[in-house]
């Protein structure tokens, strides 16, 4: 149990999917204008990643591995993810029309969010167990949501700041992202085990 909790924490903070692995930067810059839509995007992505992790695990272990179809991995994963996203899009469109409009094009674009495919591929690559890959996916998504929410909060405030014309818009947002990344460096090497040398991630080389 503790192991799973620590896995969750390290995937969310130490090996943050956005700030450390640099995955999912498209929605990170795109849907971080306001906190409400960022939270919505984060939750939708969390749902997709967790579901995709479960689905791709099954795919991997019940279809690809037994029939030695490893070369179909990326193709079939994308298929499954795309279907999941379509499903989420329908659910959001039905249950939260305001959020659906706020997310706009970025909702279907979760399909091409490399964080989703990346996390799914990583779980397959590391040959994790079902529960472990689920926790890993959920932790990554949680980290994604946290960072997206925090970044949206910062950008909401940035929208009110008197940024010099030369930096207004994307440049200052990227500087902001870099400073946020700098702050997250504080979690680097976070380790709750006895020995302090390991960087804490079970996938640390």
């Amino acid at each position, binding site marked *: 149990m503790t192991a799973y909790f620590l896995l969750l924490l390290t995937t969310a903070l130490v090996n943050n999917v956005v700030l450390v692995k640099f995955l999912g930067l498209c929605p990170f810059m795109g849907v971080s204008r306001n*906190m409400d839509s960022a939270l919505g995007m984060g939750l939708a992505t969390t749902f997709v990643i967790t579901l995709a992790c479960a689905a791709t695990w099954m795919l991997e272990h019940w279809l690809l591995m037994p029939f030695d179809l490893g070369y179909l991995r990326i193709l079939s994963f994308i298929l499954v993810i795309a279907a999941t996203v379509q499903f989420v899009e329908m659910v959001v469109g039905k249950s939260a029309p305001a959020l659906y409009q706020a997310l706009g094009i970025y909702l279907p674009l979760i399909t091409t969010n490399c964080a989703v495919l990346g996390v799914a591929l990583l779980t397959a690559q590391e040959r994790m167990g079902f529960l472990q890959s689920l926790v890993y996916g959920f932790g990554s998504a949680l980290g994604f949501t946290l960072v997206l*929410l*925090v970044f949206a*909060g*910062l950008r*909401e*405030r*940035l929208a009110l*700041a*008197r*940024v*010099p014309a030369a*930096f207004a818009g994307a440049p*200052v947002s990227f*500087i*902001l992202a870099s*400073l*946020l990344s*700098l*702050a*997250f*460096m*504080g*979690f*680097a*090497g*976070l*380790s*709750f085990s006895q*020995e*302090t*040398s390991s*960087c804490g991630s079970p996938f640390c080389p």
Partner: protein
Amino acid sequence: MITPRHVAPVAAPHAAGANSVARVMLWVAAALLPATLFGFWLYGWPALHLWWITTASAILGEALCLRLRRQPVRASLRDASALLTGWLLALSLPPWAPWWIGVVGGLFATVIGKQVFGGLGQNLFNPAMVARVMLLISFPVPMTLWTAPIPLLSANAPGFVDGLRITFGTLPAALDAMSSATLFGYARSELSRGVDLLQSLAATQAPPLSLVGERAGSMGETASLLLAAGGLLLLGLRLITWHIPFAMLATLALLASLMHGSDPARYLSAGTHLLSGGAMLGAFFIATDYVTSPNTSLGQFIFGAGVGFLTYVIRTWGGYPEGVAFAVLLMNALTPVIDRYVKPRIYGRDRHGRPLEIES
């Protein structure tokens, strides 16, 4: 004769309090002065040189940006915010760090940390801590080279010229002998060698824990008592409120006592956590930065507790021996979120902003 000369209508109120941005900044600087002077005394001339280099660079960076943005340079510099940024950065640097650390740090603090976002009040992260973290990540070796205290006027303290040589030139060969470890660094390296704290702290080469501040560390963070006194001055002047410092120190102390109580061989005591590293400087002078902290009491309390918690986590389990700077930056990032969800109750409304029920 009686009609005054008006241009545009002037809005009420037609009275203003005596407070001003410059007054706030200068009082904070005054509160920092005792600890700073103590730092100069403790680490000698190199510390003084590094201090002015860093401060001057910060002010220069600010002036440069203001000029580029075609804003009144002199008037804007008069608010003393750049001075304070440089000052705080200098206090958080190793006292014998080379000159370019101060220059790069000072410029980075005001240019990237502050002016890029639009100058005073517009930055989202504490500029001094942004610069410190950048320096630590980019130049880990000079940023973790600590000097044992060699009080000014003591036998082997470097003179003015030697001080200049240390800051601007190469480190003298003798420095190796003078280099020391901070308590956190020492404890961490001993722990990783498999020596538990009970043994390592009892050993003779263990860095002392000093209330007055005679220990290795950043230029201005060792004199815990003087820093606390400065902080109390700011509290007394009502320039800061108690929420952030108290919440931060209390959280840090609470966590440290709990963990220390559970396993004294692996976890340092609360006293060590409060008196070592940048806890005092951070609690009273850095975490309380207006611009980057929440502006409601409860929000400030949460912010302070967060800084304390993250400081402890990073110090104890993280990859870096000291965590105040990171903790402050991380909580800076969370400030808009805190401000969004923690709002004061409005008169006549409940916590969620709905009008109160009419009681009859």
